[in-house]
Protein backbone atom coordinates (compact mmCIF):
# COMPACT_ATOMS: atom_id res chain seq x y z
CA UNK A 1 0.00 0.00 0.00
CA UNK A 2 1.22 3.50 -0.87
CA UNK A 3 1.15 6.52 1.41
CA UNK A 4 -1.77 8.82 0.59
CA UNK A 5 -2.12 12.56 1.24
CA UNK A 6 -4.93 15.08 1.13
CA UNK A 7 -3.96 17.90 -1.26
CA UNK A 8 -7.21 19.81 -1.47
CA UNK A 9 -10.32 20.44 0.62
CA UNK A 10 -13.47 22.46 0.09
CA UNK A 11 -16.85 23.00 1.66
CA UNK A 12 -19.91 25.19 1.35
CA UNK A 13 -21.27 27.10 4.27
CA UNK A 14 -23.78 24.87 6.08
CA UNK A 15 -27.33 26.16 6.58
CA UNK A 16 -30.77 26.54 5.08
CA UNK A 17 -30.45 27.28 1.38
CA UNK A 18 -33.93 27.19 -0.13
CA UNK A 19 -32.78 28.19 -3.61
CA UNK A 20 -29.78 25.84 -3.86
CA UNK A 21 -29.99 22.17 -4.87
CA UNK A 22 -27.50 19.35 -4.29
CA UNK A 23 -25.87 19.84 -7.70
CA UNK A 24 -25.19 23.47 -6.89
CA UNK A 25 -23.87 22.71 -3.39
CA UNK A 26 -21.74 19.80 -4.60
CA UNK A 27 -20.27 21.83 -7.46
CA UNK A 28 -19.13 24.56 -5.08
CA UNK A 29 -17.44 22.11 -2.70
CA UNK A 30 -15.74 20.17 -5.53
CA UNK A 31 -14.40 23.26 -7.29
CA UNK A 32 -13.19 24.77 -4.03
CA UNK A 33 -11.27 21.55 -3.39
CA UNK A 34 -9.89 21.46 -6.96
CA UNK A 35 -8.68 25.04 -6.71
CA UNK A 36 -7.24 24.40 -3.25
CA UNK A 37 -5.30 21.41 -4.61
CA UNK A 38 -4.29 23.18 -7.80
CA UNK A 39 -5.41 20.28 -9.97
CA UNK A 40 -7.92 20.18 -12.81
CA UNK A 41 -10.98 18.10 -13.54
CA UNK A 42 -8.98 15.83 -15.86
CA UNK A 43 -6.59 14.88 -13.06
CA UNK A 44 -9.43 13.21 -11.10
CA UNK A 45 -9.42 9.48 -11.91
CA UNK A 46 -12.15 8.18 -9.61
CA UNK A 47 -14.79 9.72 -7.33
CA UNK A 48 -16.78 8.59 -4.29
CA UNK A 49 -19.92 10.60 -3.55
CA UNK A 50 -21.87 10.21 -0.31
CA UNK A 51 -25.51 11.12 0.16
CA UNK A 52 -28.05 9.75 2.64
CA UNK A 53 -31.58 11.01 1.97
CA UNK A 54 -31.47 12.77 -1.39
CA UNK A 55 -33.66 10.10 -2.98
CA UNK A 56 -36.40 10.76 -0.42
CA UNK A 57 -36.14 14.54 -0.16
CA UNK A 58 -34.98 15.83 -3.58
CA UNK A 59 -35.80 15.40 -7.25
CA UNK A 60 -32.73 13.16 -7.72
CA UNK A 61 -33.87 9.53 -7.48
CA UNK A 62 -30.61 7.68 -8.06
CA UNK A 63 -26.98 7.95 -9.25
CA UNK A 64 -26.79 11.15 -7.26
CA UNK A 65 -22.99 11.18 -7.52
CA UNK A 66 -23.13 11.31 -11.31
CA UNK A 67 -25.76 14.07 -11.25
CA UNK A 68 -23.74 16.17 -8.82
CA UNK A 69 -20.37 15.61 -10.53
CA UNK A 70 -21.74 16.23 -14.02
CA UNK A 71 -22.89 19.63 -12.85
CA UNK A 72 -19.30 20.23 -11.71
CA UNK A 73 -18.00 19.17 -15.16
CA UNK A 74 -16.72 15.77 -14.06
CA UNK A 75 -17.84 12.69 -16.02
CA UNK A 76 -16.56 9.55 -17.72
CA UNK A 77 -14.61 8.32 -14.68
CA UNK A 78 -15.74 5.65 -12.20
CA UNK A 79 -18.24 7.22 -9.78
CA UNK A 80 -19.20 5.26 -6.67
CA UNK A 81 -22.35 6.31 -4.82
CA UNK A 82 -22.05 5.91 -1.05
CA UNK A 83 -24.84 5.75 1.54
CA UNK A 84 -23.72 5.21 5.14
CA UNK A 85 -25.97 7.52 7.18
CA UNK A 86 -23.99 10.22 9.03
CA UNK A 87 -20.75 8.31 8.31
CA UNK A 88 -21.14 8.73 4.55
CA UNK A 89 -18.54 11.49 4.20
CA UNK A 90 -15.79 9.49 5.91
CA UNK A 91 -16.81 6.39 4.00
CA UNK A 92 -16.29 8.30 0.74
CA UNK A 93 -12.87 9.42 1.93
CA UNK A 94 -11.98 5.83 2.76
CA UNK A 95 -12.96 4.74 -0.75
CA UNK A 96 -10.83 7.43 -2.37
CA UNK A 97 -7.96 6.69 0.03
CA UNK A 98 -8.00 2.95 -0.77
CA UNK A 99 -8.09 3.63 -4.55
CA UNK A 100 -4.87 5.60 -4.23
CA UNK A 101 -3.21 3.44 -1.55
CA UNK A 102 -3.75 0.34 -3.69
CA UNK A 103 -2.15 2.01 -6.71
CA UNK A 104 -5.38 1.79 -8.68
CA UNK A 105 -5.52 5.58 -9.05
CA UNK A 106 -3.12 8.45 -8.48
CA UNK A 107 -5.68 11.18 -7.76
CA UNK A 108 -9.14 10.57 -6.31
CA UNK A 109 -12.05 12.72 -5.18
CA UNK A 110 -14.31 12.24 -2.13
CA UNK A 111 -17.55 14.22 -1.83
CA UNK A 112 -20.40 14.38 0.69
CA UNK A 113 -23.55 16.30 -0.19
CA UNK A 114 -26.91 16.64 1.54
CA UNK A 115 -30.09 18.67 1.24
CA UNK A 116 -32.41 18.35 4.24
CA UNK A 117 -34.60 21.45 3.83
CA UNK A 118 -37.25 20.36 1.33
CA UNK A 119 -40.06 22.76 2.25
CA UNK A 120 -41.72 20.15 4.51
CA UNK A 121 -39.88 19.82 7.83
CA UNK A 122 -42.13 16.97 9.01
CA UNK A 123 -41.11 14.95 5.96
CA UNK A 124 -37.45 15.73 6.62
CA UNK A 125 -37.73 14.61 10.28
CA UNK A 126 -39.49 11.37 9.32
CA UNK A 127 -36.94 10.63 6.63
CA UNK A 128 -33.99 11.17 8.96
CA UNK A 129 -35.49 8.89 11.63
CA UNK A 130 -36.29 6.22 9.05
CA UNK A 131 -32.70 4.95 9.14
CA UNK A 132 -33.71 2.84 12.14
CA UNK A 133 -36.26 0.05 12.40
CA UNK A 134 -37.88 1.88 15.31
CA UNK A 135 -38.88 5.04 13.41
CA UNK A 136 -42.44 3.87 12.74
CA UNK A 137 -42.84 3.37 16.50
CA UNK A 138 -41.92 6.99 17.23
CA UNK A 139 -38.19 6.60 17.93
CA UNK A 140 -36.14 9.80 17.91
CA UNK A 141 -32.35 10.09 17.86
CA UNK A 142 -32.45 12.91 20.40
CA UNK A 143 -34.07 10.51 22.90
CA UNK A 144 -31.38 7.97 22.25
CA UNK A 145 -28.62 10.50 22.88
CA UNK A 146 -30.42 11.71 26.01
CA UNK A 147 -30.90 8.33 27.64
CA UNK A 148 -27.37 7.23 26.81
CA UNK A 149 -25.93 10.46 28.19
CA UNK A 150 -27.98 10.15 31.38
CA UNK A 151 -26.53 6.69 31.94
CA UNK A 152 -23.06 7.92 31.08
CA UNK A 153 -23.34 10.87 33.49
CA UNK A 154 -23.93 8.44 36.34
CA UNK A 155 -20.86 6.42 35.36
CA UNK A 156 -18.47 9.27 34.58
CA UNK A 157 -19.46 11.87 37.15
CA UNK A 158 -20.08 14.45 34.42
CA UNK A 159 -22.86 16.94 35.12
CA UNK A 160 -25.32 19.03 33.15
CA UNK A 161 -23.00 21.99 33.80
CA UNK A 162 -20.24 20.14 31.95
CA UNK A 163 -22.70 19.55 29.12
CA UNK A 164 -23.45 23.28 28.92
CA UNK A 165 -19.75 24.16 29.10
CA UNK A 166 -18.89 21.95 26.13
CA UNK A 167 -21.84 23.38 24.18
CA UNK A 168 -20.71 26.95 25.00
CA UNK A 169 -17.15 26.15 23.88
CA UNK A 170 -18.49 24.86 20.58
CA UNK A 171 -20.88 27.79 20.05
CA UNK A 172 -17.92 30.12 20.59
CA UNK A 173 -15.83 28.19 18.04
CA UNK A 174 -18.75 28.25 15.62
CA UNK A 175 -19.07 32.03 16.03
CA UNK A 176 -15.59 32.32 14.49
CA UNK A 177 -16.27 29.90 11.62
CA UNK A 178 -17.56 31.54 8.42
CA UNK A 179 -18.85 28.14 7.23
CA UNK A 180 -20.94 27.45 10.33
CA UNK A 181 -24.74 27.46 10.22
CA UNK A 182 -24.95 29.25 13.58
CA UNK A 183 -22.28 31.90 14.11
CA UNK A 184 -23.40 33.14 17.49
CA UNK A 185 -21.52 32.63 20.76
CA UNK A 186 -23.63 31.66 23.79
CA UNK A 187 -23.01 31.61 27.50
CA UNK A 188 -23.29 28.55 29.71
CA UNK A 189 -26.35 30.19 31.30
CA UNK A 190 -28.09 30.80 27.95
CA UNK A 191 -27.57 27.16 27.04
CA UNK A 192 -28.84 25.84 30.37
CA UNK A 193 -31.87 28.14 30.22
CA UNK A 194 -32.85 27.21 26.67
CA UNK A 195 -35.82 24.90 26.13
CA UNK A 196 -35.39 21.32 27.36
CA UNK A 197 -35.63 18.99 24.35
CA UNK A 198 -34.96 15.72 26.17
CA UNK A 199 -33.55 15.91 29.68
CA UNK A 200 -30.58 16.56 30.10
CA UNK A 201 -30.36 18.04 26.60
CA UNK A 202 -31.46 21.60 25.93
CA UNK A 203 -32.15 23.24 22.57
CA UNK A 204 -28.74 24.84 22.16
CA UNK A 205 -26.91 21.58 22.85
CA UNK A 206 -28.53 19.92 19.82
CA UNK A 207 -27.80 20.01 16.10
CA UNK A 208 -30.59 20.84 13.68
CA UNK A 209 -31.18 20.33 9.97
CA UNK A 210 -28.81 21.77 7.39
CA UNK A 211 -27.94 21.71 3.72
CA UNK A 212 -24.33 21.59 2.56
CA UNK A 213 -21.47 19.83 0.82
CA UNK A 214 -17.80 19.10 1.44
CA UNK A 215 -15.04 17.53 -0.64
CA UNK A 216 -11.44 16.35 -0.43
CA UNK A 217 -8.89 15.43 -3.08
CA UNK A 218 -6.36 12.73 -2.25
CA UNK A 219 -3.30 11.56 -4.13
CA UNK A 220 -0.24 9.42 -3.54
CA UNK A 221 2.15 11.12 -1.13
CA UNK A 222 5.00 10.91 -3.67
CA UNK A 223 2.99 12.74 -6.30
CA UNK A 224 1.64 15.16 -3.69
CA UNK A 225 5.17 16.36 -2.95
CA UNK A 226 5.55 17.32 -6.62
CA UNK A 227 2.15 18.83 -7.42
CA UNK A 228 0.59 20.05 -4.18
CA UNK A 229 0.30 23.84 -3.83
CA UNK A 230 0.07 23.52 -0.08
CA UNK A 231 1.63 21.32 2.57
CA UNK A 232 0.11 17.85 1.92
CA UNK A 233 -1.59 16.25 4.92
CA UNK A 234 -1.01 12.50 5.04
CA UNK A 235 -3.81 10.04 5.84
CA UNK A 236 -2.11 7.89 8.47
CA UNK A 237 -5.26 5.77 8.91
CA UNK A 238 -8.87 5.82 7.72
CA UNK A 239 -10.63 3.01 9.55
CA UNK A 240 -14.30 2.10 9.28
CA UNK A 241 -16.28 -0.35 11.42
CA UNK A 242 -19.93 -1.27 11.78
CA UNK A 243 -21.86 -1.90 14.96
CA UNK A 244 -21.83 -5.10 16.97
CA UNK A 245 -24.67 -6.87 18.72
CA UNK A 246 -25.10 -5.34 22.16
CA UNK A 247 -26.11 -8.27 24.39
CA UNK A 248 -27.51 -7.21 27.77
CA UNK A 249 -25.28 -8.18 30.66
CA UNK A 250 -22.29 -8.83 28.43
CA UNK A 251 -19.26 -6.65 27.78
CA UNK A 252 -19.78 -4.44 24.74
CA UNK A 253 -16.91 -2.33 23.44
CA UNK A 254 -18.02 1.11 22.28
CA UNK A 255 -17.99 1.40 18.49
CA UNK A 256 -15.93 4.60 18.67
CA UNK A 257 -13.26 2.86 20.72
CA UNK A 258 -13.13 -0.09 18.32
CA UNK A 259 -12.65 2.24 15.34
CA UNK A 260 -10.11 4.40 17.19
CA UNK A 261 -7.96 1.49 18.37
CA UNK A 262 -7.80 0.16 14.82
CA UNK A 263 -6.82 3.59 13.54
CA UNK A 264 -4.18 4.15 16.24
CA UNK A 265 -2.62 0.78 15.45
CA UNK A 266 -2.63 1.32 11.70
CA UNK A 267 -1.16 4.81 12.03
CA UNK A 268 1.41 3.86 14.65
CA UNK A 269 0.16 6.92 16.49
CA UNK A 270 -1.30 6.91 20.00
CA UNK A 271 -4.02 9.08 21.51
CA UNK A 272 -1.29 10.95 23.44
CA UNK A 273 0.10 12.21 20.10
CA UNK A 274 -3.19 13.67 18.83
CA UNK A 275 -3.25 17.49 18.85
CA UNK A 276 -6.49 18.54 17.15
CA UNK A 277 -9.76 16.62 16.92
CA UNK A 278 -13.20 16.82 15.30
CA UNK A 279 -15.81 14.49 16.83
CA UNK A 280 -19.34 13.61 15.77
CA UNK A 281 -21.44 15.44 18.35
CA UNK A 282 -24.99 15.57 16.98
CA UNK A 283 -25.68 16.70 20.55
CA UNK A 284 -22.71 18.71 21.90
CA UNK A 285 -22.42 16.81 25.24
CA UNK A 286 -21.62 13.63 23.31
CA UNK A 287 -18.22 15.24 22.76
CA UNK A 288 -17.42 14.53 26.43
CA UNK A 289 -18.04 10.81 25.95
CA UNK A 290 -15.77 10.87 22.94
CA UNK A 291 -12.84 12.21 25.03
CA UNK A 292 -13.01 8.96 26.99
CA UNK A 293 -13.96 6.60 24.16
CA UNK A 294 -11.15 7.90 21.92
CA UNK A 295 -8.78 7.56 24.93
CA UNK A 296 -7.95 11.27 24.85
CA UNK A 297 -8.35 11.09 28.64
CA UNK A 298 -8.90 8.38 31.22
CA UNK A 299 -12.40 7.18 32.15
CA UNK A 300 -13.99 9.71 34.50
CA UNK A 301 -11.80 12.60 33.35
CA UNK A 302 -14.05 14.07 30.65
CA UNK A 303 -15.51 16.69 33.01
CA UNK A 304 -12.02 17.74 34.04
CA UNK A 305 -11.02 18.11 30.36
CA UNK A 306 -13.67 20.79 29.81
CA UNK A 307 -13.32 22.36 33.31
CA UNK A 308 -9.60 22.91 32.76
CA UNK A 309 -10.03 24.14 29.19
CA UNK A 310 -7.82 21.50 27.57
CA UNK A 311 -10.08 21.25 24.51
CA UNK A 312 -10.57 24.96 23.74
CA UNK A 313 -8.90 26.62 20.74
CA UNK A 314 -5.94 27.56 22.95
CA UNK A 315 -5.90 24.29 24.92
CA UNK A 316 -3.45 21.43 24.68
CA UNK A 317 -5.82 19.33 22.52
CA UNK A 318 -8.51 21.46 20.85
CA UNK A 319 -11.70 19.50 20.06
CA UNK A 320 -14.30 20.65 17.52
CA UNK A 321 -12.60 23.93 16.60
CA UNK A 322 -15.20 24.16 13.80
CA UNK A 323 -17.98 24.44 16.38
CA UNK A 324 -19.00 20.81 16.06
CA UNK A 325 -22.29 19.65 14.64
CA UNK A 326 -24.56 21.80 16.82
CA UNK A 327 -22.93 25.08 15.72
CA UNK A 328 -21.57 24.19 12.29
CA UNK A 329 -24.71 22.29 11.21
CA UNK A 330 -25.17 18.64 10.30
CA UNK A 331 -25.99 17.92 6.65
CA UNK A 332 -25.72 14.16 7.17
CA UNK A 333 -23.32 12.94 4.46
CA UNK A 334 -21.38 16.21 4.21
CA UNK A 335 -20.44 16.15 7.89
CA UNK A 336 -17.54 13.66 7.78
CA UNK A 337 -15.74 15.52 4.99
CA UNK A 338 -16.42 18.88 6.65
CA UNK A 339 -14.68 17.47 9.74
CA UNK A 340 -11.74 16.50 7.51
CA UNK A 341 -11.84 20.00 5.98
CA UNK A 342 -11.53 21.48 9.45
CA UNK A 343 -8.65 19.34 10.66
CA UNK A 344 -6.69 19.84 7.40
CA UNK A 345 -7.28 23.61 7.59
CA UNK A 346 -6.13 23.69 11.23
CA UNK A 347 -3.01 21.61 10.47
CA UNK A 348 -2.11 23.97 7.63
CA UNK A 349 -2.55 26.96 9.94
CA UNK A 350 -5.22 28.46 7.69
CA UNK A 351 -8.17 28.57 10.08
CA UNK A 352 -8.16 32.33 10.64
CA UNK A 353 -9.87 33.54 13.80
CA UNK A 354 -10.55 30.00 15.00
CA UNK A 355 -6.96 28.80 14.42
CA UNK A 356 -5.76 26.54 17.22
CA UNK A 357 -2.52 27.66 18.83
CA UNK A 358 -0.68 24.37 19.41
CA UNK A 359 0.62 24.02 15.81
CA UNK A 360 -0.85 20.52 15.42
CA UNK A 361 1.16 17.84 13.62
CA UNK A 362 -1.42 15.08 14.20
CA UNK A 363 -5.20 15.37 13.87
CA UNK A 364 -8.12 12.98 14.30
CA UNK A 365 -11.65 12.84 12.90
CA UNK A 366 -14.39 10.68 14.43
CA UNK A 367 -17.63 10.28 12.41
CA UNK A 368 -20.41 7.88 13.48
CA UNK A 369 -23.91 7.25 12.19
CA UNK A 370 -27.07 5.19 11.99
CA UNK A 371 -28.51 2.84 14.58
CA UNK A 372 -28.86 -0.93 14.52
CA UNK A 373 -28.59 -3.78 17.05
CA UNK A 374 -28.52 -1.22 19.89
CA UNK A 375 -25.29 0.24 18.50
CA UNK A 376 -24.29 2.81 15.89
CA UNK A 377 -24.52 1.33 12.40
CA UNK A 378 -21.13 2.76 11.40
CA UNK A 379 -18.14 4.63 12.78
CA UNK A 380 -15.03 5.93 11.02
CA UNK A 381 -11.87 7.28 12.63
CA UNK A 382 -9.35 9.04 10.41
CA UNK A 383 -5.90 10.09 11.59
CA UNK A 384 -4.06 12.81 9.69
CA UNK A 385 -0.41 13.83 10.06
CA UNK A 386 2.09 16.23 8.55
Amino acid at each position, binding site marked *: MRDVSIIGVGMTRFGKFEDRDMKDLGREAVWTALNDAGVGIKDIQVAYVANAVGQQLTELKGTIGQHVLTSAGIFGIPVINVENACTGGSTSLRGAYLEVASGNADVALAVGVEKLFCGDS*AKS*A*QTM*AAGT*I*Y*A*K*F*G*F*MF*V*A*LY*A*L*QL*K*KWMAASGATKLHFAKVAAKNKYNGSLNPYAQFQKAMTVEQILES*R*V*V*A*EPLTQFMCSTMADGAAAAIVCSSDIAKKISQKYPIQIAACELVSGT*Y*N*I*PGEEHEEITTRAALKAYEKAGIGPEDVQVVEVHDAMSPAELRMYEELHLCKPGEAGMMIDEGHTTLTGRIPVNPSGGLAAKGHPISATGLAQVYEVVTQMRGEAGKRQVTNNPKVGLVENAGGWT*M*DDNAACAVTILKK
Partner: protein
Amino acid sequence: MDKKRIPVQEGLFIEADPGTGKSYLIGNKCKKCGLTAFPKTPVCPRCQIQDTMEETKFEGKGTLDSYSIVQAALPGFQQPSIQAYINLDNGPKMWSLVTGCEPTEGSLKLGMKMEMVIDKIRDDEEGNELISYQFKPAGK
Protein backbone atom coordinates in the same frame (compact mmCIF):
# COMPACT_ATOMS: atom_id res chain seq x y z
CA MET B 1 -66.85 4.68 8.60
CA ASP B 2 -65.53 2.76 11.58
CA LYS B 3 -62.01 3.38 12.68
CA LYS B 4 -59.83 0.32 12.34
CA ARG B 5 -57.09 -0.75 14.74
CA ILE B 6 -54.07 -1.59 12.62
CA PRO B 7 -50.76 -2.95 13.97
CA VAL B 8 -47.96 -0.58 13.01
CA GLN B 9 -46.03 -3.65 11.90
CA GLU B 10 -47.22 -7.24 11.46
CA GLY B 11 -45.57 -10.12 13.29
CA LEU B 12 -44.26 -8.23 16.32
CA PHE B 13 -46.94 -8.93 18.91
CA ILE B 14 -50.13 -10.85 19.60
CA GLU B 15 -52.94 -8.81 21.09
CA ALA B 16 -55.19 -10.81 23.39
CA ASP B 17 -58.94 -10.36 23.24
CA PRO B 18 -59.88 -7.79 25.87
CA GLY B 19 -60.32 -9.47 29.24
CA THR B 20 -59.45 -12.96 28.10
CA GLY B 21 -55.74 -13.23 28.44
CA LYS B 22 -52.28 -11.94 27.92
CA SER B 23 -50.68 -10.16 25.01
CA TYR B 24 -47.28 -11.34 23.85
CA LEU B 25 -44.25 -10.01 22.00
CA ILE B 26 -42.96 -12.28 19.27
CA GLY B 27 -39.21 -12.71 19.21
CA ASN B 28 -36.85 -15.59 18.78
CA LYS B 29 -34.26 -17.58 20.71
CA CYS B 30 -31.12 -19.49 19.72
CA LYS B 31 -31.41 -23.26 20.27
CA LYS B 32 -27.64 -23.47 20.67
CA CYS B 33 -26.62 -20.61 22.98
CA GLY B 34 -29.93 -19.30 24.36
CA LEU B 35 -29.55 -15.75 23.01
CA THR B 36 -32.90 -13.99 22.68
CA ALA B 37 -33.88 -11.32 20.17
CA PHE B 38 -36.70 -8.85 19.65
CA PRO B 39 -37.63 -8.14 16.92
CA LYS B 40 -36.67 -11.52 15.48
CA THR B 41 -33.28 -11.93 13.90
CA PRO B 42 -32.75 -14.75 11.36
CA VAL B 43 -29.12 -15.52 12.31
CA CYS B 44 -27.88 -15.75 15.91
CA PRO B 45 -25.46 -12.83 16.35
CA ARG B 46 -23.40 -14.81 18.88
CA CYS B 47 -23.16 -18.22 17.14
CA GLN B 48 -23.20 -16.61 13.67
CA ILE B 49 -24.50 -19.75 11.98
CA GLN B 50 -27.85 -20.27 10.26
CA ASP B 51 -30.90 -22.26 11.41
CA THR B 52 -30.43 -21.97 15.17
CA MET B 53 -33.10 -19.35 15.91
CA GLU B 54 -36.63 -20.43 16.74
CA GLU B 55 -39.67 -18.29 17.44
CA THR B 56 -40.57 -17.61 21.03
CA LYS B 57 -43.10 -15.44 22.86
CA PHE B 58 -42.18 -12.93 25.55
CA GLU B 59 -44.75 -12.13 28.21
CA GLY B 60 -43.89 -8.47 28.12
CA LYS B 61 -42.64 -8.07 31.65
CA GLY B 62 -39.36 -6.32 32.31
CA THR B 63 -37.46 -3.57 34.06
CA LEU B 64 -36.67 0.00 33.07
CA ASP B 65 -33.10 0.18 31.76
CA SER B 66 -33.02 3.84 30.75
CA TYR B 67 -35.47 6.49 29.59
CA SER B 68 -35.83 9.99 28.21
CA ILE B 69 -38.74 12.40 28.26
CA VAL B 70 -38.77 14.06 24.87
CA GLN B 71 -40.37 17.47 24.25
CA ALA B 72 -40.48 16.78 20.52
CA ALA B 73 -42.21 14.18 18.38
CA LEU B 74 -42.37 12.78 14.89
CA PRO B 75 -45.53 13.85 13.00
CA GLY B 76 -48.67 12.33 14.49
CA PHE B 77 -47.07 11.12 17.70
CA GLN B 78 -47.92 12.44 21.13
CA GLN B 79 -45.68 15.11 22.59
CA PRO B 80 -44.10 14.93 25.08
CA SER B 81 -43.25 11.27 24.87
CA ILE B 82 -41.27 8.92 27.07
CA GLN B 83 -38.79 6.80 25.12
CA ALA B 84 -37.08 3.98 26.96
CA TYR B 85 -35.02 0.83 26.86
CA ILE B 86 -36.61 -2.10 28.68
CA ASN B 87 -34.73 -5.16 29.90
CA LEU B 88 -37.23 -7.86 29.05
CA ASP B 89 -37.53 -10.70 31.60
CA ASN B 90 -36.04 -13.83 29.96
CA GLY B 91 -35.43 -11.71 26.89
CA PRO B 92 -33.31 -8.99 25.33
CA LYS B 93 -33.07 -5.27 25.88
CA MET B 94 -35.55 -3.46 23.66
CA TRP B 95 -36.61 0.09 22.78
CA SER B 96 -40.17 1.19 23.51
CA LEU B 97 -42.44 4.15 24.10
CA VAL B 98 -43.71 4.37 27.69
CA THR B 99 -47.34 5.10 28.52
CA GLY B 100 -49.58 5.03 31.57
CA CYS B 101 -47.72 7.64 33.63
CA GLU B 102 -47.09 11.37 33.65
CA PRO B 103 -44.19 12.43 31.42
CA THR B 104 -42.22 13.84 34.36
CA GLU B 105 -38.88 12.78 35.80
CA GLY B 106 -40.57 11.87 39.10
CA SER B 107 -42.85 9.20 37.68
CA LEU B 108 -40.15 6.77 36.58
CA LYS B 109 -37.21 5.11 38.31
CA LEU B 110 -34.42 3.09 36.76
CA GLY B 111 -34.85 -0.61 37.48
CA MET B 112 -38.59 -0.34 38.19
CA LYS B 113 -40.85 -3.14 36.97
CA MET B 114 -42.60 -2.49 33.67
CA GLU B 115 -45.27 -4.35 31.72
CA MET B 116 -46.33 -4.33 28.11
CA VAL B 117 -49.58 -2.95 26.80
CA ILE B 118 -50.88 -2.91 23.25
CA ASP B 119 -52.22 0.56 22.58
CA LYS B 120 -52.59 3.26 19.98
CA ILE B 121 -49.41 5.14 19.11
CA ARG B 122 -50.92 7.46 16.50
CA ASP B 123 -53.70 7.85 13.93
CA ASP B 124 -52.82 7.15 10.33
CA GLU B 125 -53.73 9.40 7.39
CA GLU B 126 -57.15 7.72 6.98
CA GLY B 127 -58.00 8.17 10.66
CA ASN B 128 -57.35 4.55 11.62
CA GLU B 129 -55.63 3.80 14.91
CA LEU B 130 -52.10 2.46 14.52
CA ILE B 131 -51.41 0.19 17.47
CA SER B 132 -48.14 -1.10 18.84
CA TYR B 133 -46.53 -2.51 21.92
CA GLN B 134 -45.71 0.03 24.61
CA PHE B 135 -44.66 -0.34 28.25
CA LYS B 136 -46.18 1.09 31.42
CA PRO B 137 -45.13 0.94 35.06
CA ALA B 138 -46.25 -2.49 36.37
CA GLY B 139 -49.55 -2.57 38.21
CA LYS B 140 -50.66 0.89 37.03
